[in-house]
């Protein structure tokens, strides 16, 4: 049974509909990541779940009970949750007082507050900052105060909105570490919004993809990354190769898809005549160099192998992004070292190979 259940939720700001008929259940103890591009409505959804905002339409159930649209009960329910907003807003008080606020508002005893606050400051590594004016902290430190302030309340539900947006890599790593500790150790239900897919994958058990106010797909990371249910999700999760085609043959689950006259083999049950998108992750494409012309076909377990020409190579840190033309355009991701070893550059002839299982087929026109 879900701890938080959202039913047919819609919300508008002025004329614009931001959330469009959402249904979502979050289980107790679950770590759920809400991913989606900026403007998708993630913050709005979190604000509604934290009962900061009353939705235009739809219902919320918390721990099995219906949440009223107004009244004192909302405060009681809200006090079982903590929400860490995207921009950490520290109060113009000492670090200690910042962290103690929530406990004071709940009428906790003074010495219990002191114990809890000291304990949590130690946990986030801010024990030496007790009396510092919180507004003099760096972005990363302020975010840790915000985390401490929320965790000291021992919430049943922890809501996080882009917890590491605008932070440097080291602060990001620290915050992610703290979040994953919380998610694992305590029996806290966690709902996190992020536009960073890998962060969502790393820190959560289950992912929901929010696109343009609609929850288009929920599932575990593998489902979402390997088998997006529609083109928009495929785009968002980094499927850089989305090729339009038609199924021309299907032999017991291996479909042949015609892409501009070229045939790709893919694992799929779709029947002949179906218009589809063939999606291939760029890291699933292997590039091979034909050895001196003696060999016409490259030996490989991959069912798909295309002779092609490199059109462009871009270096992205430790990786190289290789654009190739094999009649249709493909993008492959290889390590920079192997790109150097293969001497990949524009004009170079290569074989692009990928397995039938590396091709994910989406029915054209599914979802929005």
């Amino acid at each position: 049974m879900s701890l938080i259940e959202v039913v047919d939720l819609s919300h508008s700001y002025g004329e614009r509909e931001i959330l469009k008929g959402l249904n979502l259940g979050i289980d107790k103890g679950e770590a759920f990541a809400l991913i989606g591009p900026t403007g998708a409505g993630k913050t709005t959804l979190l604000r509604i779940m934290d009962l900061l905002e009353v939705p235009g339409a739809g219902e919320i159930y918390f721990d099995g009970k219906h949440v009223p649209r107004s009244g004192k009960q909302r405060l009681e329910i809200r006090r079982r949750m903590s929400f860490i907003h995207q921009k950490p807003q520290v109060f113009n008080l000492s670090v200690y007082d910042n962290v103690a606020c929530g406990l004071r508002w709940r009428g906790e005893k003074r010495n219990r507050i002191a114990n809890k606050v000291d304990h949590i400051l130690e946990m986030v590594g801010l024990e030496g900052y007790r009396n510092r004016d919180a507004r003099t902290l760096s972005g990363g430190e302020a975010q840790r105060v915000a985390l401490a302030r929320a965790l000291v309340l021992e919430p049943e539900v922890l809501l996080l909105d882009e917890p590491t947006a605008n932070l440097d890599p080291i602060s990001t790593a620290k915050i992610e570490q703290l979040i994953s500790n919380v998610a694992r150790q305590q029996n806290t239900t966690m709902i996190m919004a992020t536009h960073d897919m890998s962060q969502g994958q790393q820190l959560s058990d289950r992912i929901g993809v929010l696109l343009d106010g609609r929850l288009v797909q929920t599932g575990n990371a593998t489902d979402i990354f390997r088998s997006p249910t529609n083109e928009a999700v495929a785009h968002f999760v980094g499927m850089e190769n989305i090729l339009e085609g038609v199924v021309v043959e299907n032999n017991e689950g291996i479909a042949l898809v015609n892409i501009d006259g070229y045939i790709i083999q893919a694992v799929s049950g779709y029947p002949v005549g179906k218009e589809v998108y063939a999606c291939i992750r760029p890291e699933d494409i292997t590039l091979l160099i034909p050895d001196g012309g003696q060999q016409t076909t490259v030996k490989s377990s991959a069912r798909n192998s295309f002779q092609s020409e490199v059109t462009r190579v871009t270096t992205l840190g430790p990786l190289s992004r290789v654009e190739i033309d094999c009649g249709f355009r493909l993008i492959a991701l290889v390590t920079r070292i192997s790109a150097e070893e293969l001497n990949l550059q524009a004009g170079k002839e290569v074989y692009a190979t990928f397995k039938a299982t590396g091709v994910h087929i989406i029915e054209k026109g599914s979802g929005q």
Partner: protein
Amino acid sequence: MTEIWDGLTKAVQLLISLDPAVMEVAGRSLTISATACLLASLICIPLGSLIHFHHFRGKRVLINIIQTLFSVPTVLVGLFLLVLLSRSGPLGELRLLFTPTAMVIGQMILITPLLLGLTISALSGVSKEIADTATSLGASGSQAIRLVLKEARYAVLAAVMLGFARAISEVGCALMVGGNIRGATRVITTVISLEAGKGNLELAIALGMILLLLALIINIVLNRLQQR
């Protein structure tokens, strides 16, 4: 020229010797204006918060009116109160005219728009996300408002100081509803304006210096507050 110089030296003597007449008037000024300022703050800070945190029709207009009244002429407040408190007026029964109480009420009315307006703008200076953050951390409505007031504490304090400065330096209302009665309602500004007219410069200058000193102190404190 010698007249002024004489006045100045005698004024300094009056100040150094803590002349009882000077001290009495200065003390009364402080008491009346501080009381007016305190009472007005007790009303205006909560009322300003109420206006800031609630959405209602005509809110913008109300705030505009309040801001317009920042510079209401003191004699106008005096006139209004005089009509209200005079024997035949609606509140004549209270027999408050020409008492320090009337002066306190006059100064309260005078600085209420300023305190209200500056409280509202002090609260607007606190980002809306602060109140949201507090609410998310489990603050009730009034707890969140108190936190926001605390965030704006330096700006609110500055508003109170400005209110006090306006109260203690006004003369029109104090003269009209106080009456400059010796031993009862004489304050710094009314003494300056009347004694100077009679050619009694040293007392006027001594009191003027005290007023300047107060202005200086208030200014220093305000500067400190604004640096926060």
